[in-house]
């Protein structure tokens, strides 16, 4: 009985193990038709078996690729495993990608089989069929709206499974033999990274890589099959996939899929995950909602909240880290836990969170400390698709807001003289698919992966990341210019959603601002400021004053740092449209593409540096239904207040 789980080297073998060892425990839940429909591990294994046999019957072969397009759905995760059972390689694709964006991966990996969630995804796949003639089979999970689709390529998930069960009955030993034939060194999955330029690259990850890393992290955090995870981010992103596929397969915990995008917050409250992952922007959005909702509260409640949040800021994180705190503060914190923190965790759906990670980009210290101070064990994580995520994790009790922690066991790290971080780990990717050039560039002969991130070790041996190596620039006077650092500082204000900083090779720093529609909309309503929408608000002087105040605070902060005092923001403008991934301005993981934005809004950038007070623009926008239109607007430009460098003052 006591199988050493470490001897199981592929995901299908792990699944078989769980179906045996904890067949009755929940493997995956999905809120559907109003309740949490549950698959046990045994059921999961059964679904996978039928599916795999069906795919085999239809001709999916070892080494071929299977595209999976859709949101977090049990059946799509089953499809992932089914492909792996046959030695085929699942390729999850972003469900919010437009049709053209899907063409490249399908052509690149010569994908012949795809599993799509619903009509929307099927439509996109059908749209690119002419350019992807190799795609011959499309299976769909939700038949809604597809009844009259006559395409030969289409088949429902149920029919595929039925075919599979028939095939299984006719070829009794086939499935088990295929699973047994799988090896750790086989490719387990391929994830396309969006990249900021050029075509996306397919990152090839082996079973061994994913399983090793998933296990290392699970051991470090003591994850068990009683843990619960909410799968709410795109499954095509490794940041979701590792937590909703690789780790549950290693530990046997249960993942939960929300009912729809609109119900995530509510579903999270119901499920109460114990293990949680969120990129900073999600945490930020949550905090923004918290702040906004608190602003609507009565003054008594607001001051109570403010008081206890101050207590939390002072001692909350220390208590969480088990550091000594005076009895009076402990008592106050305990009271705060009853009155504020506990309820707050409850409404955020985080009452049961034991371990929470954030990663993907730098997190503002205040944001980070907020969650820790109210008793949520939020930690930073460093990793990427190429490293099977887990490179650095902050161990419990050693959490700092400005580092990402020391290396996870099994990982070797070093920095180049240019401060670029290099990694060697069992979790490293095998290659970029059909892209030896890029592979060679990223992974050197000694097996070191070049991350492109700049940083250094702090005195405790934690890794501290500043920015991308290529983005760290210099102002014309030679001062360090770390755009992301500045942008992050700005984005910490609830009113500011996005910021794009310019300054490399220039004499001073200027920024584009996207304000947060919800926060500023609320703010405007409270001040009885009528508005018709984003574009309208973006042109308001009142909004400029609001944004200006935020920038002023950032400048004050920057002025304290001798290295960065010169990179204070001198001028800014509020963009007339929200930056959008559909327009290529953000990556699919919603990082700003600074270079592209700089080109696209060249006149605006020029105006910032030309000292103009306003500039007229016309911009192309893509609407959700694929149509394009244009917006024209006069964008105002304002100066920001700057401060003399504090260090300089002190010196003087």
């Amino acid at each position, binding site marked *: 009985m006591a199988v050493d789980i470490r001897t199981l080297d592929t995901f299908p073998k792990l699944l078989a193990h769980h179906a045996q060892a904890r067949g009755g425990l929940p493997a995956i839940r999905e809120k559907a038709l109003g*309740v*949490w429909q549950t698959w046990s591990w045994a059921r999961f294994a059964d679904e996978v078996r039928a599916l795999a046999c069906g795919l085999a019957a239809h001709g999916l072969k070892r080494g071929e690729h299977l595209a999976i397009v859709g949101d977090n759905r049990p059946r799509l995760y089953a499809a992932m495993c089914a492909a792996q059972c046959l030695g085929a390689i699942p390729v999850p694709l972003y469900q919010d990608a437009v049709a053209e964006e899907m063409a490249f991966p399908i052509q690149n990996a010569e994908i012949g089989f795809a599993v799509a969630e619903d009509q929307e995804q099927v439509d996109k796949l059908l749209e690119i069929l002419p350019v992807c003639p190799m795609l011959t089979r499309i299976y769909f999970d939700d038949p809604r709206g597809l009844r009259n689709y006559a395409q030969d390529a289409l088949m429902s998930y149920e029919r595929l499974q039925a075919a599979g069960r028939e095939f299984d009955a006719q070829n009794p030993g086939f499935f088990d033999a295929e699973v047994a034939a799988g090896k750790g060194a086989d490719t387990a999955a391929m994830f396309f990274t969006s990249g900021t330029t050029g075509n996306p690259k397919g990152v090839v990850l082996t079973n061994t890589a994913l399983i090793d890393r998933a296990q290392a992290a699970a051991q470090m955090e003591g994850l068990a099959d009683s843990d*619960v995870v909410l799968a709410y981010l795109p499954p095509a992103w490794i940041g979701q996939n590792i937590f909703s596929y690789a780790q549950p397969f290693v530990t046997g915990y249960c993942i939960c899929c929300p009912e729809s995008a609109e119900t995530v917050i509510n579903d999270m409250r*119901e499920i*109460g995950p114990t293990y949680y992952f969120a990129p900073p922007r999600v945490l930020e959005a949550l905090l923004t909602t918290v702040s906004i*909702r*608190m602003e609507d509260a009565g003054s008594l409640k607001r001051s109570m*909240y403010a008081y206890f949040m101050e207590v939390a800021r002072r001692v909350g994180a220390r208590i969480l880290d088990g550091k000594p705190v005076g009895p009076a503060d402990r008592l106050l914190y305990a009271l705060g836990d009853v009155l504020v923190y506990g309820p707050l965790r409850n409404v955020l759906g985080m009452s049961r969170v034991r371990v929470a990670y954030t990663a993907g980009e730098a997190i503002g210290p205040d944001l980070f400390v907020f969650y820790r101070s109210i008793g949520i064990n939020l930690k930073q994580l460093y990793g990427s698709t190429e490293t099977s995520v887990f490179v650095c994790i902050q161990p419990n009790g050693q959490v700092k807001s400005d580092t990402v922690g020391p290396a996870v066991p099994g990982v070797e790290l070093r920095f180049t003289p240019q401060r670029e971080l290099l990694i060697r780990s069992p979790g490293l990717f095998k290659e970029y698919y059909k892209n030896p050039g890029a592979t060679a560039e990223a992974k050197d002969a000694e097996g070191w992966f070049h991350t492109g991130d700049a940083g250094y070790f702090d005195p405790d041996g934690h890794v501290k990341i500043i920015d991308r190596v290529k983005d760290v620039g210099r102002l014309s006077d030679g001062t360090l210019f770390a755009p992301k650092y500045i942008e992050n500082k700005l984005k910490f204000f609830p009113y500011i959603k996005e910021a794009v900083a310019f300054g490399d090779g220039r004499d001073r720093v200027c920024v584009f601002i996207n304000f947060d529609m919800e926060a500023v909309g609320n703010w405007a309503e409270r001040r009885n400021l009528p508005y018709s929408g984003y574009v309208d608000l973006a042109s308001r002087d009142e909004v400029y004053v609001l944004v200006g105040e935020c920038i002023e605070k950032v400048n004050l902060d920057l002025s304290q740092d001798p290295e960065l005092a010169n990179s204070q923001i001198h001028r800014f403008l509020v963009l007339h449209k929200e930056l959008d991934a559909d327009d290529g301005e953000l990556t699919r993981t919603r990082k700003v593409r600074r270079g592209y934005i700089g080109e696209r809004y060249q006149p605006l950038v020029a105006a910032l540096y030309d000292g103009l007070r306003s500039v007229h623009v016309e911009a192309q926008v893509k609407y959700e239904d694929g149509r394009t239109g244009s917006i024209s607007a006069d964008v105002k430009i304002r100066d920001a207040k700057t401060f003399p460098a504090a260090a300089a003052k002190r010196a003087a």
Partner: protein
Amino acid sequence: MFYRENGQYKTTYGADQQMLPILQDRIFMAVLLLFAFIGVPLLASDYLLLSILVPFLILALAATGLNLLVGYCGQISVGHAAFMAVGAYSAYNIVLRVPQLNFLVVLVLAGLIAAAVGMLFGIPSLRIKGLYLAVATLAAQFFMDWTFARVKWFTNYASSGSVSTATIDLFGWRVDTPARKYLFLLAVVTVFTLMAKNLVRGHLGRAWMAMRDMDVAAEVIGIRPVYAKLTAFAVSSFYVGVAGALWGFVHLGSWEPLAFDINLSFTLLFMIIIGGMGSILGSFFGALFIVALPILLNQVPAMLGLPLATATKSHLEVMIFGSLIIFFLIAEPNGLARLWAIGKEKLRLWPFPH
């Protein structure tokens, strides 16, 4: 504030549709019931039991009955004390004529007779509503008042017109002490409340509410008005009839027809307006309020050193009732129950205001 709902997810419709879907509510209810069944009889004085809790429980039951009709089905009644009278006199006569019958059976029979009479007076509701229906129920009130006052058979030819009852005996357990009376009532009221709650969240309850909210639409989607309205009258009168029997046997002991006059009908109506129309919980709030207010009026001014004359007190009482009715109709038409629900919602969303 006290709610921790994370992890309370439902995997079946059964769990999702349970009466108290939130764990903390279930705990609260369990503690409350435990306290009511064990703590109260141990701690409460006879005065508290007899003067407050006994009438409170019975009136809560009656208000629940009236609420099913008025609050859930939207059919007005200003004559529900008549059905209490039917229940009380039925029970009296059954006990008188078939003394060996267990009192629980008597209660059910009394309720059934009240239900039959209620349905009879509910028949006009099929053609008329609102004010017109008020007249039909007033007719019930005055006609039943008269019947019990004048038809001698009902009072067993008592010369004074008043009747008195013997102690209730349940399988040898005599309901004679204040604590026993309280426990007996508590058990009956608990069971009936549970059933009422079940009814209103079942398809019959939805049919009632549909009739209340939009009767034409209700009929168009296939709800039979005859069935919905008459069942509402029947169930409501059943509850009120049982309450009437308990009022007579447990609370009053002996009574005359005036005990169930129109003022009691109005009082019942006030209970559900103040407590909350369309809420079972509201019936309890309303009953508690109505029972507690006179006592407060008695004690608070005295404590403040301003003893009031009896007449002034009773006038003050009706004034307060009158103004509260208007206040609630204007400010919170769903009564105290709505305030409770808002408070609960606030606690669930705490520290957020909404």
